[in-house]
């Protein structure tokens, strides 16, 4: 089984006597309300998905991540994982109880540092831009100026109502892969319904490994992204009919989306390594938004690391489409078609227009069962 990033699968979920002790400490501690991203980060740290992180970053780590794409100890780490203060006045060494927006206790922070960091510098380093229109920059500008760092413990898991049967921790997926006898597992990250192009990538990948984990992101996304609830119906339907039962698993990835393009691709890959995956699919404009990143920047960034710095291997794919000449899915690497009119590909805008009108996109673009779910969801949204 592939090792966790940094060598050790972290577990910061408190149980038994330790939890009792920490609950007593939390009761006496000031309470800090986490936003949706911070809640998902706390959960991801707790279950070990963010190994080797054991808490929210301090200034040394953040500075190193922003400027060198590595933690202060040199371990590759591409994204900021920070906790913003919202008026809590605690001293270093004290505890802070972490609560959700309903004031439900989630965890405990053992405060090791309070600090400020230049948000524009953080945005340029991690997101590649400090343009206010970028959703990641918007987020940074919306949170407080002071960060709180320290190790965290999860005392109560966040309450989920979505995809409750698909929530597996890294420890659980590792047991699952072992039980299935899979040595090599490819992860597919997605925040969209799976259309034919993505189905093609995942099946190409599955040809060379033992198993495929469809691992859709179900944390916070932009309001105009298709909801995780609708996407889950699409995945279930697609897997039920068009994928082999014994080679594919569906589980959810509770992280919030950062839209950080290449750096987030590295983030997504490392975290899937923690889930026990050996391979990771990187397509075009992975984790991109708008035109902030080059089409294949998210593939190229992996070449900037040394061969031993990231254990999970990427499988890079070009833009895929239906090739009318060959009568099959293809990419520019494999297509017989050269004329654009022989390549069936629809823009996201065009697909949305068709779905809103109740029209199924061509079968070469999306499976009819998936199209019907999306049409229904758009119709019910319009009727609200």
């Amino acid at each position, binding site marked *: 089984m592939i090792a966790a990033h940094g060598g050790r699968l972290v577990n910061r979920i408190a149980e*038994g006597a330790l939890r009792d002790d920490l609950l007593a400490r939390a009761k006496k501690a000031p309470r800090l309300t986490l936003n949706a991203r911070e809640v998902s980060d706390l959960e991801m740290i707790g279950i070990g998905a963010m190994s080797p992180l054991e808490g929210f970053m301090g200034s040394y780590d953040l500075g190193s991540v922003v400027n060198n794409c590595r933690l202060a100890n040199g371990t590759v780490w591409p994204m900021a994982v920070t906790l913003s203060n919202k008026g809590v006045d605690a*001293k*270093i060494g004290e505890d802070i109880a972490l609560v959700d927006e309903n004031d439900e206790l989630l965890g405990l922070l053992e405060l*090791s540092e309070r600090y400020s960091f230049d948000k524009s510098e953080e945005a340029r380093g991690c997101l590649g831009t400090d343009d206010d229109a970028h959703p990641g920059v918007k987020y940074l500008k919306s949170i407080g100026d002071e960060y709180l760092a320290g190790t965290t413990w999860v005392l109560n898991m966040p309450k989920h109502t979505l995809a409750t*049967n*698909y929530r597996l921790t890294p420890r*659980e997926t590792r047991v699952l892969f072992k*039980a299935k006898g899979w040595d090599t597992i490819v992860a597919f990250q997605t925040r969209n319904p799976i259309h034919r192009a993505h189905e093609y990538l995942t099946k190409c990948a599955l040809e060379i490994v033992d198993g495929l984990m469809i691992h859709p992101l179900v944390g916070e996304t932009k309001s105009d992204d298709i909801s995780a609830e609708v996407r889950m119906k699409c995945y279930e339907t697609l897997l039920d009919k068009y994928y082999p039962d014994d080679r594919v698993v569906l589980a959810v990835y509770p992280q919030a989306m950062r839209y950080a393009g290449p750096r987030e691709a590295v983030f997504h890959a490392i975290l899937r390594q923690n889930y026990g995956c050996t391979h990771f699919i990187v397509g075009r404009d992975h984790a991109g938004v708008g035109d902030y990143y080059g089409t294949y920047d998210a593939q190229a960034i992996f070449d900037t690391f040394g061969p031993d710095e990231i254990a999970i291997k990427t499988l890079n794919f070009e833009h895929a489409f239906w090739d009318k000449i060959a009568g099959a899915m293809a990419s520019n690497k494999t297509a017989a078609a050269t004329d654009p009119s022989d390549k069936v590909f629809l823009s996201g805008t065009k697909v949305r227009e068709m779905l809103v009108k109740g029209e199924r996109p061509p079968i070469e673009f999306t499976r009819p069962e998936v199209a019907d779910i999306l049409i229904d969801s758009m119709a019910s949204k319009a009727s609200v």
Partner: protein
Amino acid sequence: MNPKVTVKIPRPLYERIQQVIEDSGFSSPTDFVVFVLRDLVGDRALEKTEPEKGARAATNDEIDDIRRKLENLGYL
């Protein structure tokens, strides 16, 4: 009962801690000592002395529990 107790340390060490924490964010040598000791003998130490409470590989019983959960969810 007072939840805190007094621990005596050599004065030179105390004075050295006072120097170390200057401008560090620790408000007193006591805060610093509590932080260091908690790190040293608290949660992290549990991983070594009481592995069931810290980060470590899953035990056979836990793996069995996970397998049961995976079976119940239809994964196995």
